């Protein structure tokens, strides 16, 4: 407050902003301000739906359908939230989603990492054939297979079970492809040294390779977790028992049951959106890296 000389915009202090001098002449402050305004406008438009949902959820039920729409009602209330939470289903679905997403993430990452490590470091006869088959799996559009997959799950007795939701989601050939590249980059000398000391392959994997690849493992884990948490199509196909539904499926099931209770519907929506937004705030860097890595096929 008492430092009037402090520059108000971050141009002088920011690191990645040292654009060379001549450019400044052609893009004066005005250009930067325009860019900022444009970015802010888009941000506002993008935030609008969730802000409107939040505003609706905090209104008394009777005032949600005021027309023309108003941002505020006569009072701010959490009634819709207590009502939605007291019905209980939301909590069950939240727990189911968490269970499914954690299980999918753990199984996917560990089995993919094991396979990737073998493909990177542990030669055996037939390995190249197996790798080719694995890579071919990347191009299989899993959603298109739901009908035969459902038929198969019925034969296996996995319809309406947790395993039925989880297992078809854990096969991730692309993950093997990505992790293999990272494991190949681990210096061989470290592994050789451990081997001379008598460490088995499993021990080398867990104590040397995995810790060294922690950043990429964190990134892909969060990426898998988000995908599993938000997956709709497969859980929707395989579950009909409400007590086994994940959050997206359960909500879809009751979306119409809310009827004209828009405050409650929006309260449920806000609550269901919250967990991953919070996770994003905590793991922003890993998520950005995860998207960049998994989205662009590694590297």
């Amino acid at each position, binding site marked *: 407050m008492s430092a009037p000389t402090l520059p108000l915009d971050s141009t002088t202090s*920011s690191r*990645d*902003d040292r*654009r*060379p001098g*001549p450019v400044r002449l052609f893009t004066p402050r005005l250009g930067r301000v325009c*860019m*900022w305004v444009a970015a802010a406008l*888009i941000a*506002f438009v*993008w935030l609008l*739906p*969730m802000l*409107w*949902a939040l505003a609706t959820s905090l209104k008394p039920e009777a005032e*949600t*359908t005021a*027309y*023309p*729409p108003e941002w505020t009602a006569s009072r701010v209330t959490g009634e819709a939230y207590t009502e939605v939470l007291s019905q209980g289903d939301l909590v069950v679905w939240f727990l189911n989603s968490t269970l499914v997403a954690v299980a999918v993430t753990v199984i996917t990452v560990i*089995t993919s990492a*094991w*396979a990737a490590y*073998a493909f990177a470091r542990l030669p*055996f006869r037939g390995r190249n054939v197996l790798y080719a*088959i*694995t890579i071919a*799996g990347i*191009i*299989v*559009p899993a*959603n*298109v*297979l*739901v*009908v035969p*997959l459902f*038929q*198969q799950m019925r034969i296996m007795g996995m319809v309406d079970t947790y395993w039925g939701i989880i297992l*078809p989601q*854990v*096969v991730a050939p692309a993950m093997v492809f990505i992790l293999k590249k990272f494991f190949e980059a681990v210096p061989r000398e470290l592994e050789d040294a451990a081997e001379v000391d*008598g460490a*088995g*392959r499993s021990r080398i994997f867990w104590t040397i390779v995995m810790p060294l690849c922690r950043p990429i493992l964190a990134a892909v884990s969060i990426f898998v977790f988000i995908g599993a*948490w*938000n997956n709709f*199509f497969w859980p929707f*196909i395989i579950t009909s028992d409400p007590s086994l539904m994940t959050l*997206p499926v359960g*909500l*879809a099931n009751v*979306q119409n049951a809310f009827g004209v209770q828009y405050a409650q*519907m*929006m309260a449920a929506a806000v609550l*269901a*959106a919250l967990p991953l937004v919070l*996770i*994003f705030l905590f793991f922003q860097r890993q998520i950005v890296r995860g998207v960049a890595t998994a989205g662009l*096929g590694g590297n």
Partner: protein
Amino acid sequence: MSTPSADNPTRRTDVATHTHTRTRAITTREPSRPGHRIPPGVWFIVPFFALYVVFLLTPIILGVVTSLFNTSLAGGTGEFVGLDNYRELLSDDAVSSSAGNTLTFTLFSTPFLIVVALVMALLTHRNMPARWLFRLAYFMPFLVPVTVVTMVWTWMLGTDFGFFNGILDRVGIGPINWLGEPTAAMVSVIMVTVWWTVGFNYLLYLAALQGIPEEVYEASAIDGASARQQLFRITLPLLKRTTGLILVLQLIASLKVFDQIYLLTQGGPNFATRPILEYIYDVGFTGLRIGYSSAISYAFFFVILVIALVQLKLFSRREGSA
């Protein structure tokens, strides 16, 4: 206690095996399995491959077989009908109309999903006040479960009390039946999809922009390039490969569209927005015709396969050049 003689040999064998193991571990670096030695790599691959075979390969094969039968979900394998299912789909109007809807959706949503993402990334890849908030705003919808997206948008797009019609009303435009009129419904679906998923492409562009070395800009600035020239002569050309990859990823994702359309319009009004995947779902799970449904799946599968092969080629080229 009562059988010391039986106890002793066992222990002795244990000790022997143990020492044997240790020597072997040091000298041959193989886990000890006297007799038949399975290379350690196999054990590392077995869990992944078992899952791969059961949950990916089996349904692929099962689907091919099923598509040759008139199997019903109600029970029974049905009888062998050869290629009849494939012949039927060629003349099925619902196949062509839902494939057409999928195509329309893909053709009109993809340009927005690419251009908007690019604009967002170009605007925010340099430091500016509140940049973290902008990034969060652009990417956040991608983190929201699809059902939340459709609940919120159904509410926004409502005909009677909806937010959009409320604003339009104020400027004197009559209420639009956003989800109930064929063209408006397709526009709504595309709008919602762009809002929901553009953040993913945005992050990919952001990562690519950060990979462009600062020196390139510095050098061009010394040569007197304007910001405009830098954008069109340096930045955009360098983003070409990223754009290619995003385009292919986007095409595959858009062709598989189901969730948001099913939840927003159920494919309506009068099937005007029903995508091919929803038709496959309808035939299989509502019409119970698994055989025919599998045949449509496979025809569709091949379309995506062709695009995916292009993707793989792009990926491997990227790998090769990196």
